[in-house]
């Protein structure tokens, strides 16, 4: 068991269990952070501190890795993460207009989360579905060949969920 933290015991034991799974594996930090983020949704300062403590590495190293990679985030995200693919194929086929349309309907800018914590609008790197450009993902759902006029209904369908 690792030392004290402000997290509740349930969260602590979840982190401990994840770290235990990777203990001893060379270069375990990134796989651990993937697993921890999958569990908590994001990597808060407290969570990062706990990971550092359990792996017996400096907290600054964990923070350095978290801030380096786009995939890791230290902020809570909305229930639905709208990811607009900004790969070249999507861009050439009008992804910038799709972004403006989402910003209009959600009332937030790229990278922000709505006040009700329902939506986060983010841009993603090429997801490799270039044949379907422009592509938008909402959590694990993929919407290909999206056009500006479909955005409003798409947003509405998730609002109702």
């Amino acid at each position: 068991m690792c030392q004290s933290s402000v997290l509740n015991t349930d969260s602590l034991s979840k982190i401990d269990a994840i770290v235990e799974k990777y203990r001893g594996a060379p270069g375990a930090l990134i796989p651990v952070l993937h697993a921890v983020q999958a569990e908590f949704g994001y990597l808060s300062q407290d969570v990062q501190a706990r990971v550092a403590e359990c792996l017996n590495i400096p907290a600054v190293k964990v923070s350095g890795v978290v801030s380096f990679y786009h995939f890791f985030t230290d902020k809570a995200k909305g229930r639905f993460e709208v990811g607009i693919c900004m790969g070249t194929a999507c861009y050439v086929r009008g992804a910038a207009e799709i972004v403006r349309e989402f910003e209009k309907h959600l009332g937030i800018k790229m990278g922000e989360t709505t006040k009700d914590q329902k939506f986060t609008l983010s841009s993603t790197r090429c997801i490799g579905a270039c044949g379907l450009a422009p592509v938008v993902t909402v959590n694990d759902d993929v919407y290909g060949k999206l056009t500006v006029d479909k955005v409003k209904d798409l947003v509405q369908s998730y609002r109702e969920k």
Partner: protein
Amino acid sequence: MIRSHILVCAGAGCVSSKSRLVKEELLTRLKLQDLTEEIRVIETGCIGTCDLGPVLVLYPEGVFYQKVGVEDVAEIVEEHLVRGRVVQRLLYKEPLSEEILEKMADLEFFRRQYRIALHNTGAIDPDNIEEYIARDGYFALGKVLSEMTPETVISEIKQSGLRGRGGGGFPTGLKWEFAARSTSSTKFVVCNADEGDPGAFMDRSILEGDPHTIIESMAIAGYAIGADQGYVYCRAEYPLAIERFVSALEKAREMGFLGENVLGSTFSFELELRVGAGAFVCGEETALLSSIEGNRGEPRPRPPFPAVKGLWDSPTIINNVETYANIPSIILKGAEWFNKIGTEKSKGTKVFAMAGKINNTGLVEVPMGTTLRELVYEIGGGIPGNKKFKAAQTGGPSGGCLTEANLDTAMDYDTLLSLGSMMGSGGLIVMDENTCMVDIARFFLDFTKDESCGKCSPCRIGTTRMLQILERIVNGEGIPEDIDALEKLASFIKDTSLCGLGQSAPNPVLSTLRNFRDEYEAHIYDKRCPAGSCQALIHFTINAATCIGCGICAKHCPSSAIVGERKKPFSILDDQCVKCGVCVQECPFQAIERR
């Protein structure tokens, strides 16, 4: 007895187009007709025609159905499988000749391909190791372990002329030889599947569609250089590839292709998948290694090269997914066979991911030396809406653009370099007359600026400065000195950056400056975007002669920039217009012009 096989494409493109629902419906309908004993449904990797998804191929005839919806399945089962009549309305129509084609093999898209790296992708069920073995899978590993020494393996790869498919084009056999020479007791084999080049998706498709090829090749590489541990480093953006590869690893282990004493030999090999975390720079080999080690993905200076001092300071070879996918065929068919394909200095084939303004987006594999014209017009079916070809970007954010004048150049590593572009991983983004080349250069710089790891200042600060200038130009605020400044900065960044990311980041700007300087000048001097794409330089006006004064445009305008009296021509207040283009869409009389 099985009388028919239905291949359902389950590449990420088709899955996104709901191909799995089509498969479920097929299974349900076949059960209803009591045909499950006679007809097998197989989920395959990417067939290649992503734009036409979901696609089905029905064997033994080889009939190709495209854009199949769940609602079409009943008809396919009842008409095709019960009555033996092809469902005409789901067949493919060649975009240029408008000819309707029944069989997959007749499509121009497939007819001109030569598949080595992709020979199983789209043809087998990636989750079924037996299908891989049935197509000579793991035979090359068997041959290597029973008949060849590490030296003969390396010599075969060297003689084949295979060069790295990830971008640089370094001779693969030579790389293996450097690592093999080292007497170190610990060595590593790494597969670079961090396919960060936006618009390239060949590595993803191979991992999804034929994961065992990579496992087999990496084991061969391990044997050749004397390594017993390998790592595949895959992007986190490819969940399906990760899932299929992990499942393939387990099956290979169960059957003795991985682990202690592979196939009963004295050779042992283990393989692990590491998932990236969204950093483009990790495609650079030294950055990739530091990411596997659990650190920030920052590159380190070379030499020493990874083949001498790599992962945890041990000799390491790093090859790209597509490079590995060529290895089994070279071992089985011989270097001489491979050597005959391609051009003098670029042997074999290349997989291109065609996307952007092209009719047949998707994945194709063609011999090195195929011309851009063949790719875009014959295989790719031309440009949608019969628009004019303007340019094709190869090499992604590190590459450059090819123009109309280059359409007939035989494409290989060296000709692309001489044209100021590069092969890169094989992404090919086609652009038409509506694409602004200055904006594309800005797009790539925005990407590289964002992805610069920040370790060296030429790249970190230089790309930021270049981006500022490009943003100024596309916003109509460019000044005459800007072109000069861009060229100076570009050569400075190229010469002084630490790694490939920075050294190649200015390429898209240099290449568009060389080929489309007039577009830069139009933005700077005339405050005009010739392609009509840069928002700040577009103006909307109402044609007073065709406007009937219905007011629909004014009603829809989000910024109240349209004013007028009913039944008289309306007008647009330029300073209030946000250039969203809603008015153009809404006007029933096409009275609004965009310039």
